[in-house]
């Protein structure tokens, strides 16, 4: 069992070392290319503090401006089910307003609490697995187990499932 994030012995294994070297080489190459500016660098933090509640970007921004399609990022009532593509293509944009810790309530290699338990009093949020999910999950899981695999598909993120499912 490893106890440290970067365990020296294993890190020194040839393959990983090679990989790390390759990454470093790539890194310096990119640094050299950093002159390849796009001219549209995002701010690291959203200039306006939006507080709580799901934002509708187009309330303050035009639907499409320059390289930004603001309409796409409107946090609609269904955003929980649809943010996947937005996140895959624009994680840096999400990071303007969200620390990764925000995502980690639902996306983590291992957390113990259901997001709806950790944030029980934030009832205005559309959390997955609200209420008694233990009973309902077998139906959702039988009909469409694909989303379950995305969040519970690794040995660690399936820790809760193992006692019943092996």
């Amino acid at each position, binding site marked *: 069992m490893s106890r440290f994030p970067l365990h020296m012995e294993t890190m020194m294994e040839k393959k990983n070392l090679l990989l790390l070297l390759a990454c470093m080489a790539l890194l310096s190459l990119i640094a050299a*290319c950093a002159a*390849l500016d796009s001219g549209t660098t995002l701010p690291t933090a959203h200039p306006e503090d939006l507080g*709580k509640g799901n934002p509708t970007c187009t309330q303050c921004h035009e639907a499409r401006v320059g*390289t930004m399609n603001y309409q796409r990022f409107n946090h609609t009532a269904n955003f929980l089910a649809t943010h996947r593509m937005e996140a*895959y293509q624009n994680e840096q944009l999400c990071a303007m307003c969200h620390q990764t810790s925000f995502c980690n309530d639902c996306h983590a290699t291992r957390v113990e609490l259901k997001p709806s338990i950790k944030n029980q009093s934030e009832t205005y949020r559309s959390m997955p697995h609200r209420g*008694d999910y233990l009973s309902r999950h077998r139906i959702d899981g039988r009909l*469409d187990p694909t989303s379950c695999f995305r969040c519970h598909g690794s040995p660690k993120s399936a820790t809760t499932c193992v006692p019943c499912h092996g």
Partner: protein
Amino acid sequence: MKKRPARWLVLAPGVMLSLLMCLGVNTASAQQYQVESDTLMRFFQRDTLAETDVSVWPLYEYLRADANVDGVQGLSFHLYGWGRADLGDGNYYEDDTDAKLLYGYVDYRAEQANFLVRLGRQYVFSGIANESLDGVLVQSDLGPMASFSAYGGLPVALDTQNGRSGDVLYGGRFSLHRGTLYDLGLSYKKSENDSETYQERMGVDLALGLWSGIQFNGLSVLNVDSSGWAEHSYELRIPVRSVTIRPYYQSFVYEDYFGTSPSGVALFNALAARGNATLSILGGDVNWYNGGRINAGLKVKSISNDSNGEDALYYGGLLSLSGEGMNEVGAELGYMDGDSSDNSYLLARAYFYLNRMPRLAAGAFVSGDLVYALYDEAIYGEDYSLFASLGLGTKFLHDSLQVKISGDYSQDPYFDNDLRGMLVVSYLFGR
């Protein structure tokens, strides 16, 4: 496999504390930092193999720290983790203590080209990756029309077997884009567990900005290991005044989608063993929001699963009304109409969250939640689940300290008259 949580529990806060102390000592050079601590104390009763009505008192601590490093423009440091200790004496958990470091990385951003380097434990959300990585991520634009990101290191999720020897994770995404017209990405990801391929995937994603504000999003994923398409997901978003209509289609092939090396999760390996059975989903959502106080949505989803011959149609709607501050009340109602009665249920939810009320102090709130499910075929002899929760909270010290309490009640196939309580103390400070 023996866990070593006790050591971790000493280690994790120790690491965090020393880092915080570094920050404290160097406040002159640390330009800006923020620390957020959430302490959760839960209480409930459970039956264990040995005893009944054992009291469980888990105490959770979630700690997040972010700091900008002075002197180096664009350099920052981020840390997040949680720990738990059961203060009850009932041996409810496998180990009374547990802790995880979710991330701890150094982040560098250049002023140009959206150039970004991250080193350490981090989450990678890119192309087809939704992974926790101990390693490095590099991201940059390549002129105005192209970008890329690449990452490599050790996969955090796969260290449960044989530690980390032979484990590796790497991949990246290259994309071409132009304004809001299109964003076309090509990604690759490979992970190995104990020197065996765990997953090897390629993906194509496309976002197209069409006429009249219509948007197309698509994602296709290829399982390189089995050379089969694992997934196709496509959607359109059609805005018509204050309504957005989203028709979508998804299809999955079991062995290609769920397939990992045998060291993966038994539950999903069993699904992968269903071979080239497919699952297809055709659905649509309609969202109505006019910028005012009403938000409404409708959903229809038709699932056809030929891995087990189960088909179903889900339809439902939700409505929320918001007022001053964060005042909000809402309700949701849906029905999963499965081919067989054991796959059918009705789901209803109603909630409120109020923080602007005549007698309520500034910063205080009350919240409530009710979730009801009615099963067409009883589960363990019970045909419904009822969950109810009430919460209240308030803020002190210029809003940097928040205290919340909540109580939950559940009557369901697994628990009879179950009561749970939780106290949350959140503290945020920074400079």
